[in-house]
């Protein structure tokens, strides 16, 4: 079939006078790797004998995860006071950690859904791992509000399930909206992740040599045969799920921000919260993607699949969203000054110069100043430095939620009821443990499921184009 672009009769006259500069697109897969190389590379991660680093890290992750479970066990048997929650600060680290982990998840959906709709082909190298990160981050996030309710055995009252008291959830509460938003987010992300994985699970099934491996992956692959009649429905469903996930991911952090913005606490009651939270979520999520992918890329030698172009793009998104977050910090101050509301003005002056100013300046330096280093190509090419900057971003975004939650509650309208909140050791253990819990889930994913979407990576190679010769 002749390529329609070759024999176009209407060649613009300008092309006779000027010679356009050649601007080749950066290759997505380096060294012109073939389909079989991609299959081998990704399947080997699952098929090779369990590496030592994995066993050591997994054991360490399990140990760290135990801190969460011991912490939660202590909390349930004692009461939420064990979390350092008392008047006036009723939302301590639990809510900070919840918003932190939910935010981490957003980059995964951005990569899998929004970049899919925008036809950003570079997303294929990182989308599977980023989606896994989303799901596991939401698992960690969900723990905190679940146990924050106090009597966790009544947590099911949050769901519209008939109970003997004959009462129902109150749908006017943003906290109830959050239940729907986060559980929908978790469900849809899992469906999207699993559906995208089916063809790759089929590949692992077809290469399986032991019966248990064959049985396990056959079950998961659902009998996928890769017929184009199947691909046609699959691609349509994939596109639709991307289209559904896009408004979903924007709504989730919007609704998380409503938890704050719908109240009338100074510093919380602002209309900037939804876009500001969403930008911050994507910012922190991309930092987490790089934090996870840079070591994995080095361990599994994925340099051809995840190359400098991918890292550059992610760094630039971090730079863009970090700058948006910085702009939002500035806007908050301006609006507080402009509002003429003395409580609002105080809330912001207090954030920057009050008893929690140390947290505020950690936040600003990590979130606004460090990402500016990504303007420089030399920095983006130094992967150790990229990794360290991403850690700073993760720290900064945790402090952002700390500043928002704690400063407004500790110093609100009545000076007589002000206080100073400090976390307890139970808080610290529980939060520390969630990194272990997250790592346990992520390590299991790396070991047993396809880390990169093979089919999608193959699709963006030059030899996948039916009209290329």
């Amino acid at each position, binding site marked *: 079939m002749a390529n329609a672009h070759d024999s176009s009769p209407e060649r613009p006259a300008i092309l006779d006078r000027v010679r356009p500069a050649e601007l080749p697109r950066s290759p997505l897969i380096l060294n012109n790797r*073939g*389909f*079989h190389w991609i*299959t081998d590379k990704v399947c080997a991660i699952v098929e090779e004998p369990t590496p030592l680093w994995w066993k050591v890290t997994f054991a360490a992750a399990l140990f760290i995860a135990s801190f969460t479970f011991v912490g939660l066990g202590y909390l349930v048997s004692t009461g939420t006071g064990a979390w350092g929650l008392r008047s006036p600060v009723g939302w301590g680290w639990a809510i900070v950690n919840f918003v932190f982990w939910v935010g981490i998840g957003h980059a995964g959906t951005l990569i899998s859904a929004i970049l899919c709709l925008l036809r950003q082909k570079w997303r294929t190298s990182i989308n599977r791992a980023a989606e896994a990160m989303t799901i596991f981050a939401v698992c960690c996030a969900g723990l905190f509000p679940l146990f924050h309710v106090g009597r966790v055995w009544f947590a099911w009252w949050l769901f*519209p399930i008939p109970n003997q008291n*004959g*009462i*129902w*959830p*109150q*749908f*006017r509460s*943003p906290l109830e*909206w959050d239940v*729907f*938003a986060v559980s*929908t987010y978790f*469900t*849809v992300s899992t469906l*999207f992740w699993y559906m995208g994985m089916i*063809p790759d699970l*089929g*590949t692992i*099934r*077809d*290469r399986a040599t032991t019966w248990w491996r064959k049985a396990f992956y056959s079950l998961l692959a*659902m*009998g996928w*045969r*890769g*017929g*184009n*009649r*199947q*691909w*046609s*429905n*699959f*691609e*349509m*469903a994939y596109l*639709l*799920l991307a289209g*559904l*996930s896009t*408004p*979903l991911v924007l*709504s989730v952090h919007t*609704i998380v921000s*409503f938890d704050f913005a719908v109240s009338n606490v100074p510093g919380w009651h602002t209309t900037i919260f939804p876009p500001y939270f969403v930008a911050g979520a994507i910012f922190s999520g991309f930092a987490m993607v790089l934090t996870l992918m840079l070591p994995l890329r080095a361990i599994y030698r994925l340099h051809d699949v995840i190359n400098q172009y991918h890292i550059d793009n992610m760094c630039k998104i971090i730079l863009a969203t970090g700058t948006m977050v910085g702009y939002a910090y500035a806007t908050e101050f301006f609006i507080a000054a402009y509002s003429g509301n003395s409580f609002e003005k105080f809330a912001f002056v207090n954030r920057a110069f009050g008893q929690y100013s140390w947290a505020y300046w950690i936040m600003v330096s990590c979130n606004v100043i460090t990402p500016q280093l990504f303007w420089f190509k030399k920095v983006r090419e130094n992967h150790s430095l990229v990794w360290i900057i991403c850690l700073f971003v993760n720290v900064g975004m945790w402090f952002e939620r700390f500043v928002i939650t704690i400063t407004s509650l500790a110093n609100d309208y009545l000076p007589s009821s002000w206080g100073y909140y400090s976390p307890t050791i139970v808080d610290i253990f529980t939060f520390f443990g969630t990194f272990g819990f997250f790592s346990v889930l992520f390590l299991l994913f790396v070991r047993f499921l396809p880390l990169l979407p*093979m*089919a*999608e990576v*193959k699709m963006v190679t030059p*030899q*996948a*184009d*039916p*009209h*290329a010769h």
Partner: protein
Amino acid sequence: MNERNERIHGVACTFRQVSDVFHAAEQVRDAGWKNWDVHTPFPIHGMDQAMGLPRSPVPRLTLLGGITGFITGCLLTWYMNSYDYPLIVGGKPYWSVIFPFPVIYECTILFAAFGTFFGQFIFNRLPHHHHPLFDLPQFSRVSDDTFMIVLEARDPQFHLDESRNFLLSLGGQEITVIRD
């Protein structure tokens, strides 16, 4: 169809290049085949047109799911907060579409996603763990780097020898008969 074909599922032939299988598919389409498929390790851009496939019906179930979700969200919040246990909050109406809108919105997306996800399974007839193709040794490479055209025996045009020759003329490499 003659008796000999009864236990035959079809004829398969493999290709190594994307462009080869693409042009072969166009010829199978032009020859008027109905029951056939192109098995590939990844979706090939433009293959739907090359095979003459209609648009996928999955969006219908997405729409159905979305409408169901919207109605479910409205009914859920109306029944619980306004009908079964009406509660006056701030002197506002018992129910309006505004205050529970986030809940309705999430229900719409959730059910639409279910419609899409299960729609994909329904229209692809999955799960389907037993299929004659899985017995074919060459088929295990189709999820790796090989492309395969399968002409099925239930197509009225199918005749074992002629179909085999037809596939040969398309430039296929390895021709195999698939038995049920």
